[in-house]
């Protein structure tokens, strides 16, 4: 489907009528970069369309978003070639303030754009700067807060909102200016699946009902398949292809070659097609499956053998929590009687909605917080009696944002920092540091400033620093947030290598679809309690329990359940590969 970009982008010529944005041969180079971040991009964004943008990290997606309202190059400087017109305005000839009235922008991290002391002030801020009359501002605040379902928290501080609410507030603030074009850069990367779904639903509603043009960058292939009219695929700064959503997301081989994850339903039928299923087009949405399956006559294999995680009931408990209670100073009860035992050598994933208590639980494990009541034991020792340095030797903690744990001016200093402060000999420090750098593939950048590395590599620096302590267990808090598919797999492969080396691994994540290849056991948390503690197959197929904590199972699990619905064999399949392996195509002569 590698379409001719120039012909596609040249379908319309009226920049003021049909197209909201027109990009002509746009190239851009950041001031300190040696290569262009955008390369000869020609593109027309049609009025009222929902355009999804996909691509690997570094493909130029965020730069393209910022170019649409002049932040690139007006704020960043650098060199710029070509022309971008937004509603007829050249982005190099008009100030960002003027362009911002036409282009609303929502960044990946909403905290970077929330500045006011209350929700309604946040919405009012841009309007006040545009000298919108007071009564009109009041009307618009009510209107947009209603749209994003935040009316009930209008007087709250933005800091007191959940991640999903902050994201919706950022959208509301952008909407209040009534932009012609709404640009959202990874707006759901920090949200639980239901929070992400709500954002997509809100944006789709704005697009469908108000006719607002939407450009949305996301790695969430399943949601894009449901919402977007067209998809643009960027690669190394170039617009590789643009076309109808089903065409672009249905080209699995092209997406995988660009390290972009296709929807799981598409991956599954791609594998089935490789196994002989007569499919001319691949479905990209679950709703297409029910029409497709009868014609294919898929049958489950007679005796499916599924890999099961090893039973570790005999292993020693490494971390034991008994009846933990914790409330934050504002009175929010984060944990309500949590009891949990993590055994040596396990790979445990903790899942749950935003605010379920996952991070609070691991902060208690790391002694970063103290429980209101209840006890924690590390092996046989009461956590309360453990010194911080002893705890650091036993349990390593990799925070969600690696930058929060980086403060030295070279990778080597960073990795050796803790060792230097808990009394190891110089020879031991050098040995452990070198070993840790080698295991993380960081020897070649040992002298480099850690913040000059890409985010995935910065995460590796933090992991190397943790590994240098040679802990028995490592806890990863949302390690795949903000990573593209390749980056996320890379980090999880590291966790797998640690697990295979005998370490106990605990991962907190919202990205359930990534975990089947790694985790053995799943702890599902909701509203400060443990709702389910089970092997991964059982947990991911406990759809009702997951939904109670605003999680939805991976699309492959839902697909497996739908395919199994008539036979009711109880197959607990988790991935597209497993589904393709366990369902045979009976009818191979008819193309769909």
């Amino acid at each position, binding site marked *: 489907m590698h379409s001719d970009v120039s012909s596609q982008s040249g379908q319309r010529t009226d920049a003021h009528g049909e197209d909201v944005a027109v990009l*002509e*041969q*746009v*190239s851009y*180079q*950041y*001031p*300190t970069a*040696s*290569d*262009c971040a955008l*390369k*000869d991009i020609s593109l027309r964004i049609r009025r009222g369309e929902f355009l999804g943008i996909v691509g690997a990290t570094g493909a130029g997606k965020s730069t393209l978003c910022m170019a649409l309202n*002049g932040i690139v*190059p*007006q*704020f*960043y*400087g*650098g*060199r*710029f*070639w*070509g*022309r971008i017109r937004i509603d007829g305005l050249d982005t*190099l*000839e*008009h*100030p*960002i*303030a003027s362009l911002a009235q036409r282009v609303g922008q929502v960044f990946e991290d909403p905290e970077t754009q929330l500045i006011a002391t209350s929700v309604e002030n946040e919405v009012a801020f841009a309007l006040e700067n545009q000298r919108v009359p007071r009564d009109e501002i009041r009307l618009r605040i009510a209107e947009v807060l209603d749209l994003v379902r935040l009316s009930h928290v209008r007087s709250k501080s933005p800091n007191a909102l959940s991640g999903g609410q902050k994201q919706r507030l950022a959208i509301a603030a952008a909407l209040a200016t009534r932009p012609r074009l709404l640009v959202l850069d990874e707006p759901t990367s920090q949200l639980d699946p239901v929070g992400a779904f709500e954002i997509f639903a809100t944006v789709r509603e704005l697009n469908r009902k108000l006719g607002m043009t939407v450009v949305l960058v996301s790695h969430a292939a399943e949601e894009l398949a449901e919402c977007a009219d067209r998809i643009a695929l960027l690669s190394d*700064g170039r617009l590789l292809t643009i076309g109808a959503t089903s065409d672009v997301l249905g080209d699995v081989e092209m997406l995988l070659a660009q390290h972009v994850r296709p929807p799981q339903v598409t991956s599954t039928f791609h594998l089935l097609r490789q196994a002989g299923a007569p499919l001319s087009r691949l479905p990209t949405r679950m709703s297409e499956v029910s029409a497709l399956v009868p014609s294919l006559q898929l049958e489950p294999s007679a005796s499916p053998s599924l890999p099961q995680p090893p039973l570790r009931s005999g292993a020693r408990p490494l971390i034991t929590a008994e009846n933990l209670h914790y409330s934050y100073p504002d009175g929010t009860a984060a944990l309500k009687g949590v009891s949990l035992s993590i055994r040596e050598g396990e790979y445990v994933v903790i899942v749950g909605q935003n605010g379920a208590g996952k991070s609070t639980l691991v902060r208690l494990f790391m002694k970063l917080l103290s429980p209101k009541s209840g006890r924690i034991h590390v092996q046989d020792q009461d956590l309360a009696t453990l010194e911080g340095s002893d705890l650091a030797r036993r349990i390593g903690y990799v925070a969600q944002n690696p930058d929060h744990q980086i403060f030295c*001016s070279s990778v080597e200093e960073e990795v050796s920092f803790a060792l230097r402060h808990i009394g190891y000999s110089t020879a031991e420090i050098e040995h452990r540091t070198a070993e840790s750098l080698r295991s993380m593939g960081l020897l070649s950048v040992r002298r*480099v*400033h*850690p*913040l*000059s590395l890409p985010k995935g590599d910065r995460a590796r620096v933090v992991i190397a620093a943790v590994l240098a302590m040679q802990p028995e267990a490592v806890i990863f808090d949302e390690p795949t947030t903000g990573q593209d598919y390749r980056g996320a797999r890379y980090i999880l492969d590291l966790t797998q290598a640690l697990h295979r080396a005998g370490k106990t691994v605990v991962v907190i994540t919202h990205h359930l679809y990534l975990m089947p290849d790694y985790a053995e056991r799943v702890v599902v948390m909701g509203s400060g309690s443990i709702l389910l503690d089970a092997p991964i197959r059982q947990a991911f197929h406990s759809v009702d329990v997951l939904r109670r904590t605003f999680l939805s199972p991976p699309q492959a699990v839902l697909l497996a359940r739908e395919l199994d619905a008539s036979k009711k064999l109880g197959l607990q399949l988790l991935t597209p590969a497993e589904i393709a392996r366990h369902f045979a195509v009976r009818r191979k002569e008819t193309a769909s």
Partner: protein
Amino acid sequence: MSDFRPSGPERSVQLHGGAAIDGAPIAYIVVLAAVVAALSFIPFSVVLSSGGSFPMSQGVFGLVGWILGPWAGAVAAGIGTLLGVFFAPHTAGVWPLSIYGAITASFVAGCFSTEHGRAWWPIVWVWSVLSLGVYLGRAYALAAIPLSTVIWGSTVDWLSVLLLATPLRSQIVRWLRSPDLSKVALGLFIGTSLAYGISHCCVCAISYYLFNWPEAVWLLLIPIIPIEFLFRSLIGTVVGVGVLSGLRAIGLVKPRYAIY
């Protein structure tokens, strides 16, 4: 650059206003003002002339000027110090003079570079010569402090005024821009002292008028002042090397008149 050659016409990139002061984004100014305010909490020694402790923030005034440029640096240092007056009165000393000193030190540091066709340093130099003249002239002519005591007691002041007019100023800029962090450290160490030295003589022109300290205090200050300057420079160097290497590493957009 790779083999890629853009096919579109290259455009001249212009900045059309925006939330900035003299080319420095407001957000940067806010952050550095907050840093100055936070460092105001930490007292480092007793300053006899104004009867208080000098705060750690005095060590980073120069750094603020090099990061933001003269005007934005002066705004950030001034606001930060003003906040410090309220939140950390134990280090505020005579607060109008503290703010004046902060503004002057950051502005002087930001003036080290003469790029972009801007050369504020001669104006700063003339102002500092006048201030030095008022300060030392009053001590020698009106308070009858012996000349040798005045000269030894104001070494950092007249030395800074002299050095500002030499090529050392440009050399410090080159050191601050060097990829070699040891040269950056040298630039920070000498530059912090030089910028604060100018600020010191501007402030002393007023504080000496207010307090008119006697010869005994002049004698006491002769060893104390260089030690205080040494500590300011060490603070500026330690904090500055980390901050500048970090800023370079993350590739954050530089303010238009930044020197690093």
